[in-house]
């Protein structure tokens, strides 16, 4: 289909990429990009990193206003879609309806707010608005408590400690970033944050956010005058669910990122898709998944391509002087083999699932190539080569 109206719900990096890729692939019909937040689509990763230091919001825009004009992409920011009428192929926004020929759901996630008493006292860090509020609060020396020792919480903690604030992190899991990295990497980052003077409370959940800070599960009180909630996210699936589409920790899509309704696709943080190597249903929170999904969907819409989505996932996190890079996707329980240079290889059932590195772009890129190649490397084949990824 090179004509027709494509409606994209969600104007984050994935939604925008879908609009751009549709034009690159030669889509000539109308494209409407609907965003819940005000303003131009912007980059989210710097919100917990560079932006907190510089406050340069104008540097975050992914594309200037003139771009949307020149590509004939109708951007409608600050708008929430109320419903999808699949039978009529329409989305409803208040009393307005928009006809679509193809619909792309790029609704992303929202912060998970666990049922902790007093949690309304905690700030969030997800949107530019959140980041502005948080940054403004850092204008004086603070005692900061972070709920959650994942990427966002730790990136923020590293910046805040670097700016001279007094920082504590409470994490319910016994180690940092437990969902995403190996125990060896968790340990490296524990040392980093403790070295920065940050107090870590691991395996200790938050029972209450009080006027004076946090009360932890074991009774420890953490004094704080600023509390950040960074306990993960949940996908925005309600729109799809209410339209009768299957939802399972995300909007369920098949190998070409199509839902059970052939006119509707989902991408990025809100999409639960089959992992190419294992067939397992996964949902990724990353720039890579959002943009690679978007390109795949644009090809499917414009050119009718049916090649299964198979891009190798990659992630990164900047914390102080350490750049953590992950190629592939490991389960928390996957085995890990630490190499001399600091890289950690992850294995499941004897097959390589992911490679974690710190400040080592070379190994990271070798791992991406290796994981993207034909056969999945096995532990035995790698061991024969002394775990030298270049030789594999």
């Amino acid at each position: 289909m090179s004509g027709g109206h494509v409606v994209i719900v969600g104007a984050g990096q994935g939604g925008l990429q879908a609009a751009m890729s549709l034009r690159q692939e030669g889509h000539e019909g109308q494209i409407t990009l609907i965003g819940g937040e005000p303003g131009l689509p912007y980059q989210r990763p710097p919100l917990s990193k560079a932006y907190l230091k510089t406050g340069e919001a104008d540097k975050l825009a992914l594309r200037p206003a003139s771009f949307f004009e020149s590509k004939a992409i109708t951007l409608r920011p600050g708008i929430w879609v109320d419903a999808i009428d699949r039978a009529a192929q329409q989305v409803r926004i208040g009393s307005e309806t928009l006809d679509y020929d193809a619909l792309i759901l790029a609704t992303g996630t929202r912060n998970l707010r666990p049922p902790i008493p007093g949690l309304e006292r905690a700030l969030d860090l997800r949107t530019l608005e959140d980041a502005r509020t948080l940054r403004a609060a850092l204008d004086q020396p603070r005692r900061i408590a972070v709920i959650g020792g994942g990427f966002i919480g730790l990136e923020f903690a590293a910046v805040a400690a670097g700016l001279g604030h007094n920082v504590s992190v409470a994490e319910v899991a016994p180690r940092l970033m437990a969902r995403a990295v190996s125990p060896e990497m968790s340990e490296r980052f524990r040392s980093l944050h403790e070295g920065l003077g940050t107090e870590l409370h691991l395996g200790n959940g938050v029972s209450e956010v009080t006027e004076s800070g946090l009360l932890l599960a074991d009774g420890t009180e953490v004094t704080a005058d600023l509390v950040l909630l960074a306990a993960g996210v949940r996908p925005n699936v309600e729109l799809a669910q209410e339209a009768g589409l299957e939802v399972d920790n995300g909007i369920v899509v098949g190998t070409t990122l199509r839902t059970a309704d052939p006119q509707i696709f989902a991408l990025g943080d809100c999409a639960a898709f089959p992992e190419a190597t294992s067939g397992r249903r996964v949902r990724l929170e990353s720039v890579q998944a959002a943009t690679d999904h978007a390109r795949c969907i644009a090809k499917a819409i414009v050119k009718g391509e049916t090649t299964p989505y198979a891009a190798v996932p990659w992630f990164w996190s900047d914390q102080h002087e350490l750049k953590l890079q992950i190629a592939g996707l490991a389960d928390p329980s996957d085995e890990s083999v630490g190499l001399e240079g600091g890289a950690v290889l992850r294995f499941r059932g004897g097959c390589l699932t992911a490679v974690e590195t710190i400040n080592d772009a070379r190994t990271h890129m070798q791992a991406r190539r290796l994981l993207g190649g034909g056969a999945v490397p096995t532990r035995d084949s790698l061991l024969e080569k002394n775990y030298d990824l270049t030789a594999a």
Partner: protein
Amino acid sequence: MVKVTYVAHDGTRTELHGDPGDSVMSLAIAQGIDGIVGECGGSMMCATCHCYVEEDWAEATGPRMDGEEDMLESAACEVTERSRLSCQIKLTEAHDGLVVHLPEEQV
């Protein structure tokens, strides 16, 4: 202000004016230059801001940064000795007049 000329693969030249501290990538994105994608926002996680620095400017823009070479290996188009990731070229007054050429594809 620092003048930078971007030469698209089809030969189209676009002159932009940036501030010291901008990167060659961020200036291009802010002004909507098509030939640069900058997917990771300058975190050196992708190679979608690949450019070729015109020979006369090689010295002023300096050598590749740590890790840049590894990322360039995954660039979509041919990598030459002039190849740089434009996110790693931070503009200074000394770059006024800089000319970079853009590859046919970034992804």
